[in-house]
């Protein structure tokens, strides 16, 4: 049995070595190289300069706002979905938009938010002048929230769905108001879903670069945009890797904060 399973594991172990361990090691290695390939800690020093610290801060701020608004919209939606008849069908309908290519959805907003687009046409009905909505913080956050909503709804829906309804009935019978029931019973019991939702929103939100380029012009620069810039435009792989190292660190920290206690079971 054992030897058989070793051979089964072989391609998988190669995969881990080549595509999990090696890339991280390479990013670490490159982060300590300068443009001509000499060993240096200059990149790390640069990262702690005012420009990069400010960029990191704004990146976090945007990621926070995006996550916050996504959660604000997704939680009630997931909650109400569990109350509908045919809830699996409705959930399916929420998931379908997430399968349409990300680029296409983002592209749609170039038209919608455009100077002559429907939103501005709507504004004009009320006698206001058309506004440039594209290339603003608002459009960036709006489109990102739009993109992340289904990914936030799914884990929250699943944890709400698993919630035993008799707990809610018990709370109500014991005299708790619906708000207290929600705050003291429902929300704490679905916190794991919320945490996974935050994980799948916050980390990608830190590293978005496609939406920033298409929707925010060059107004918004996130950590992701900076990495893309360093790797593909400036060709400064060292600095790009350094930012990537910090992004990995932030990712690990986010995972630790939103980490879930292991429950029983065989794994």
């Amino acid at each position, binding site marked *: 049995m054992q030897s058989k399973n070793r051979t089964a594991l072989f391609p998988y172990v190669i995969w881990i070595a080549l595509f999990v361990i090696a*890339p991280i090691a390479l990013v670490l290695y490159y982060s300590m190289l300068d443009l001509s390939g000499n060993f240096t800690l200059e990149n790390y020093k640069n990262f702690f300069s005012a420009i990069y610290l400010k960029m990191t801060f704004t990146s976090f701020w945007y990621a926070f706002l995006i996550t916050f608004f996504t959660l604000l919209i997704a939680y009630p939606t997931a909650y109400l979905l569990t109350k509908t008849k045919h809830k699996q069908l409705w959930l399916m309908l929420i998931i379908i938009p997430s399968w349409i290519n*990300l680029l296409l959805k983002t592209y*749609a907003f170039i038209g919608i938010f455009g100077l002559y687009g429907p939103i501005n046409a709507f504004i004009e009905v009320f006698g206001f002048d058309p506004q440039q909505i594209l290339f603003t913080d608002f459009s960036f956050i709006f489109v990102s929230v739009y993109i992340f909503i289904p990914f936030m709804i799914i884990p929250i829906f699943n944890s709400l769905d698993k919630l035993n309804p008799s707990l809610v009935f018990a709370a109500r019978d014991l005299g708790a108001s619906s708000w207290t029931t929600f705050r003291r019973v429902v929300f704490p019991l679905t916190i794991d879903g919320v945490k996974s939702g935050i994980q799948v929103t916050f980390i990608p939100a830190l590293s978005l670069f496609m939406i920033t380029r298409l929707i925010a012009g060059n107004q918004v620069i996130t950590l992701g945009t900076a990495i893309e810039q360093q790797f593909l435009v400036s060709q400064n792989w060292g600095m790009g890797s350094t930012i*990537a190292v910090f992004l990995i660190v932030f990712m690990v920290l986010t995972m630790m904060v939103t980490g879930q206690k292991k429950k029983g079971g065989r794994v």
Partner: protein
Amino acid sequence: MNKLSAASKGYLVLVFIVLYAPIFYLIFYSFNSGGNMNDFESFTLEHYKAVFEDTRLLVILINTVLIALLSGLIATIIGTLGAIGIVSMKDKKLRNTFLSLNNVLIVSPDVVIGASFLILFTMIGVKLGFTSVLVSHIAFSVPIVVLMVLPKLLEMNTSLIDAARDLGATKRDVLMRVILPYIAPGIFAGFFMAITYSLDDFAVTFFVTGNGFSTLSVEIYSMARAGITLTINAISGLVFLVTVLVVIGYYFVNNRTKARMGESK
């Protein structure tokens, strides 16, 4: 169950409208004979015709599907074997290490994956293009397959294997006729997810694609950067159609297997 209030229904309807509006907006203007997404002049199919007449675009489309299917298939094989290997590990610590390593690529930001793969391919001298894109897609799909197959393996009763062994089945038979049929739904789900991830990926592909090779996402990105082209709208119409067909097909197959499983029980 208590009925939803009007306000709750209104909220849900609003969320659905916001989620679908951009998609239908794109599809609506794909039939516009005017060249923009603001004034609808008259109905036309010229943009769809343009998609099918553009050989470059068609090649890109074929490449995208080919990459998705191939990477999905290979990732499913590696992932399924990996999951079987992980489950049969006796050492708990080792097993947990593997599980953590497995999740690294799932939680890593796309940009970091893309950048690190770019370094990797450059270091080992893989030419950027079809191969590098295919290999990267396999690489980021493997952990998803593992995660889809694992629960099925874990819920499997180990006495099934013991029984098969006692009845004289060889290791090969146990794998082919007991384990694999049992975990098949997980394998299909993994394959399906792998394809979805591959079709949807932009950031990783963007880093490792090099010149001369492109997938649909990357192509749309460069088209969208240049401004509004209704060809993209026509592509959205086609993508939406295919997505809906796949969803219906997936549900049909899923329900049928469920019904069959019900019968056999």
